[in-house]
């Protein structure tokens, strides 16, 4: 069978056409069309390209605004929707820098904002910055009974500086910061009825939470290239703190008002301080017939905590005042090692053997003291140890049988041991027994890549595995994964299709768990003319699973029930986008996205679960955009995107659908 590989010209042309179209971009903003010359302008010894988009966006939301904010969250206002700047030295010998690359998204007040910056001077330094802001909104969807609301902002920044990036000895420095702040509404379960343990008369109360977490990480490392070996060393100091506070003032009757218990005042402080110093060493040697990579890491995670909680409320027994104090520490040392050996006995055969070892120990004590100033006190220390050790070996083979046929196969073996001790004492010695278990998993892989025609590629893959002692009923036990992929690519047309199927059967004495996932997808990109591109894709994601469940149900004396839980998710997702260029000045872009779960989880051995087994919904988003080049360095853009989320199940009679019109108008300009 003949074989003529795809030419780079064809490949690159196709890629560039698609890249320019940016077809699968879901949100209508920012506008992908850039202002100014893509080649940039020369200024002294540098070439500069830049394009900035500034505009106003709006959102009109009807229905569940909370769900909209959780899903989409775009609001009103003026934004720097996007920014792109690159400055390149034309001879690679700039005085202070040879390259600056700056990209921004959503600056101003968008819920998702990011800035990336690279500044580089050949041979001397390379600096990378990634700054991001994420406005997170959780409206307390029914999974949490509508009570766990969060309206927080997460700021993340990563700085990385490499000194002497082209030399045999390089130095790396880095700093990362991750903060989360904002109000939240949490819940607390309290026992204000005079008993230490909450029974059916327990009650849960909403409490305000002031989320304040912060992580700071410092990195220092080096790469040493010597005698054919490359040694990488890294040390990281990571510190985390949580100073979130909880409080409630006012009389709350809680989630179970029939108890007659009210919470009148609540305050909790729970400061946590964690440190996770980390060491990494990696040694690599790559040759013509042999490549070896060895790595060892050690993480010494530690955490110290203190909790002080005061609650005051009313009970049928009278006013109660309860105080809880907890203090202690936790540690999680983790040691890992990897050794990968690649052998290339012939030009068409590659053998890779990889061995990995991981040992994680988690332990800590928690000194718990509860004072009920009216009745009882409790004071005890808990101890928990969880040890994990995994040893894995993977042997993979890749063989190029013909120019049009490659095969691969593999055998992966892993063994995991888990040890557990749980104990508590009234300030006495611990005597908890240790529980041990081990799980062995063996997996075989087989696959092929076939290229029968110049423009056609077919990939086939399969995996089958068995684990003899999985940790949970939903873990892999007897599983099979099958997949195939087809691609046909010529200059003006790309066709693709893929299929994946996963089975897992985890049978046990009490119940059984099985899952069956099937994913089908197809996509096509057609560019018949330079001025027209059409992109379409469709995916069907199907999952059905069967779980054995045991629970109690009943009003006065709940009785045990056992049965099966069936969950069927039958998702159809489609995307259609068209782009037109009119007279080389006007870009028109129209798209439509739909995600539809048809559900169909009817029928169950446990009737109580029937209402929560099928969740048909519909999520659609059409969009349209126009971008007009007014001048060489100025474009005007406008766009509209509609979101329609519609649930058909209404958990607890609460429907959280919405529809929203969002849009923007902007100008894209270059210096």
């Amino acid at each position: 069978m003949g074989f003529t590989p795809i030419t780079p010209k064809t490949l690159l042309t196709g890629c560039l056409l698609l890249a320019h179209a940016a077809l699968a971009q879901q949100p209508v903003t920012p506008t992908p069309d850039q202002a100014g010359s893509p080649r940039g302008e020369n200024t002294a010894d540098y070439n500069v390209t830049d394009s900035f988009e500034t505009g106003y966006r709006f959102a009109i939301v009807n229905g569940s605004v909370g769900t909209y904010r959780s899903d989409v969250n775009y609001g009103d206002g003026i934004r720097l929707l996007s920014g792109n700047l690159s400055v390149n030295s034309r001879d690679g010998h700039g005085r202070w820098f040879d390259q600056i690359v700056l990209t921004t998204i959503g600056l101003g007040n968008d819920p998702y904002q990011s800035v990336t910056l690279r500044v580089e001077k050949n041979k001397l330094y390379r600096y990378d910055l990634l700054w991001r802001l994420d406005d997170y909104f959780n409206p307390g969807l029914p999974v949490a009974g509508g009570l766990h609301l969060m309206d927080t902002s997460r700021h993340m920044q990563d700085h990385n500086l490499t000194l002497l990036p082209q030399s045999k000895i390089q130095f790396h420095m880095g700093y990362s910061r991750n903060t989360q702040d904002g109000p939240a509404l949490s819940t607390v379960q309290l026992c204000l009825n005079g008993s230490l343990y909450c029974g059916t008369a327990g009650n849960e109360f909403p409490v305000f939470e002031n989320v304040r977490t912060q992580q700071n990480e410092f990195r220092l490392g080096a790469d040493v290239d010597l005698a054919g070996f490359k040694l990488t060393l890294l040390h990281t100091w990571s510190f985390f703190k949580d100073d979130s506070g909880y409080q409630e003032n006012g009389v709350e009757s809680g989630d179970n008002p029939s108890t007659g218990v009210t919470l009148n005042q609540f305050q909790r402080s729970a400061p946590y301080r964690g440190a996770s110093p980390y060491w990494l060493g990696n040694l690599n040697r790559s040759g013509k017939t042999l490549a070896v990579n060895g790595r060892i890491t050690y993480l010494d995670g530690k955490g110290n905590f203190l909790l002080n909680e005061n609650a005051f409320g009313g009970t049928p027994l009278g006013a109660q005042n309860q105080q809880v104090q907890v203090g202690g520490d936790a540690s999680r040392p983790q040691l890992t090692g990897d050794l990968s050996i690649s052998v290339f006995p012939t030009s068409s055969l590659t053998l890779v053997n990889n061995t990995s070892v991981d040992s994680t120990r988690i332990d800590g004590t928690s000194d718990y003291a509860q004072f009920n100033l009216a009745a009882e006190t409790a004071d005890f220390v808990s101890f928990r140890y969880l040890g994990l050790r995994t040893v894995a070996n993977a042997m993979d083979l890749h063989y190029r049988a013909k120019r049009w046929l490659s095969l691969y196969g593999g055998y992966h073996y892993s063994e995991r041991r888990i040890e557990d001790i749980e104990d508590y004492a009234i300030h006495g010695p611990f005597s908890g027994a240790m529980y041990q278990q081990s799980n062995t998993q063996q997996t075989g892989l087989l696959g092929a890549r076939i290229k029968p025609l110049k423009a056609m590629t077919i990939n086939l893959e399969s995996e089958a595995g068995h684990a003899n002692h999985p940790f949970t009923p939903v873990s892999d036990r007897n599983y099979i994964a099958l997949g195939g992929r087809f691609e046909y690519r010529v200059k003006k047309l790309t066709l693709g299709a893929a299929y994946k199927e996963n089975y897992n059967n985890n049978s046990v004495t009490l119940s059984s768990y099985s899952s069956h996932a099937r994913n089908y997808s197809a996509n096509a990109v057609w560019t018949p003319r330079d001025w027209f591109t059409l992109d379409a894709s469709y995916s069907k994601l199907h999952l059905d699973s069967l779980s054995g469940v045991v629970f109690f149900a009943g009003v006065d004396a709940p009785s045990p029930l056992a049965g099966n839980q069936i969950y069927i998710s039958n998702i159809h997702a489609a995307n259609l986008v068209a782009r037109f260029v009119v007279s080389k000045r006007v870009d028109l872009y129209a798209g439509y996205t739909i995600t539809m779960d048809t559900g169909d989880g009817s029928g169950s051995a446990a009737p109580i679960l029937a209402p929560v087994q099928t969740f048909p919904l519909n999520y659609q988003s059409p969009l349209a955009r126009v971008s007009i080049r007014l001048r060489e360095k100025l474009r005007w853009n406008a766009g509209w995107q509609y979101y329609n989320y519609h649930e058909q199940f209404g958990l607890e009679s609460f429907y959280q659908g919405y529809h929203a019109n969002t849009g923007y108008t902007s100008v894209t300009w270059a210096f």
Partner: protein
Amino acid sequence: MAADNYTGSAVCKTCHADVWFNFYKNPHYKSIASGDQPPDRTGCEGCHGPGKAHVEARGGKTTIPRAFSLMGPKEVLDTCLNCHARDFSKGNIRRSQHSLADVVCTNCHSIHKSPAAKFLLAKKQAELCYGCHADVRAQFSMPFKHRVSEGFMACTDCHNPHGSFAPTWGMADGQSMVERAEGDQEPCLKCHADKRGPFAYEHPPVRVEGCGVCHMPHGSTNAKLLVRPVVFTLCLRCHNGADGFGTRNNGIPKLTNTHNMLDPRYQRCTLCHVRIHGSNSDGYFFR
């Protein structure tokens, strides 16, 4: 290869002016700018091989020692790894699922005409990955998702397309090339630092099986990217007391008889068990 078979990039640009015109923006230009690299590691011939025969023949692909359009996947990989093999991020490239499936460097990188700001990607990163992973593209279009299509995140925040080390969770099975956060933990913890701990009371499946036991990381039709729409159905999958599972081998504890599942209060598990990822104060994750 004899040194006199190398002509230097200056000769190449005579005919390939279109490639040379913007080549100073290419990271590979550093090898030319440095002026101290041997001929086989610099400029055009660093990748394509000595050009003397090509020049003497006045062109033609077959006279280029390494014409990528004529090379098979492994040859492409070997050529790029001549310089990049020892990058730490590529320590597992030979065993990555991409390499096994013959998805090699030029499938994702466009060396001469990259439209991306960094890494010479053939497209914007998400578009590039969506090209093959259409099912993942569909997941990122779902109502609840990580903001990859919005440009806020990138696939490489969580994945290493060049291959990753074996994960420390699950059974160390790393087919999806999931990158690890520093500290050999799940990449989720890079951003969700509050879930990192260590906690005095870890929810064991989080450490043993990983976040994916409860969450679908790309996107979901369920709030909080959960694998089930209703939280108690999620919890009941494991908390059924089935023998042989859990840390004590005698089943993951089923709910006590105080939990009347007909009562919506008890269907909202995290209403009480608020610290479900891990707690320092309570083994039942109450506070």
